[in-house]
């Protein structure tokens, strides 16, 4: 094979390896360094910039909500088991199963309304523009509106979003 071709191809491979290696290493390092511990509200802080006092209030709201959420999750789980039991061995939806399904739906609706209330409370403890952005984003993510509205809600007007 032509010597020049071998040299150029070798240089190309080396270049790709250098670029790829440094990209992968840097990506991994950055991901490890920036990673936040579970349960941390750092993402909220970094993304929506509440001040320390607001952050402390949000932290309290968050803890209170999580305890409520755990109770509601247990209730939903129990209702699911009851629905499964009511449906077990039948190929028709009995009135009892319908009743259990309605109870499960009510339980879920209650959970969702608590969740939305939590989002509203948190948004009120943020700078107004950021609060609106947070609320819109959370509602879109949690109510499944993201697929219907591909425009990301996290892109406010240029003058609204603080510069880093």
């Amino acid at each position, binding site marked *: 094979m032509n*010597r*020049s*071709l071998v040299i150029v191809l070798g240089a190309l491979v080396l270049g790709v390896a250098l670029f790829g290696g440094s990209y992968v290493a*840097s990506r991994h390092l*950055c*991901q490890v360094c920036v990673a936040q511990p*579970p349960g941390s509200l750092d993402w909220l802080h970094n993304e929506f910039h509440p001040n320390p006092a607001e952050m402390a209030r949000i932290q309290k709201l968050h803890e209170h909500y999580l305890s409520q959420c755990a109770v509601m999750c247990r209730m*939903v789980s129990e209702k699911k088991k009851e629905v499964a039991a009511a449906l077990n061995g039948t190929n028709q939806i009995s009135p009892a199963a319908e009743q259990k399904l309605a109870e499960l739906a009510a339980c*879920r609706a209650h959970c969702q309304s608590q969740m939305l209330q939590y989002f509203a409370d948190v948004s009120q403890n943020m700078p107004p523009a950021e609060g609106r952005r947070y609320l819109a984003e959370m509602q879109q993510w949690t109510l499944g509106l993201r697929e219907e509205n591909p425009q990301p809600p996290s892109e406010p007007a240029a003058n609204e979003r603080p510069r880093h």
Partner: protein
Amino acid sequence: MKENMNPDDVKLSALLRESRVSPALPPRFQENVWRRIEANAVPAQAGSWLDALAVLVLRPRFALATAAALVVAGALLGARAGDLAANQTAQSRYLSEVAPPALR
């Protein structure tokens, strides 16, 4: 006359050398010669750019500068991608904490 010539005759040789008259070169002779040489140069071959590239690649300065630029570019892009990925992970974690998938 040829028969009488003695090759070892040093004196005769010197006289003959002196008798040779070298004509004066026309003005800008050398420059014109080079110009003609350049004008008649062989046209570039297909593989010549590859040879030139190979020569360039083998230059230590060029190789080092290119390697450094690639490493820096890779590191910067990697850092940006890592930051975005970490942010996305943190967002997903927050969402799954406050809005379990069963509720969405």
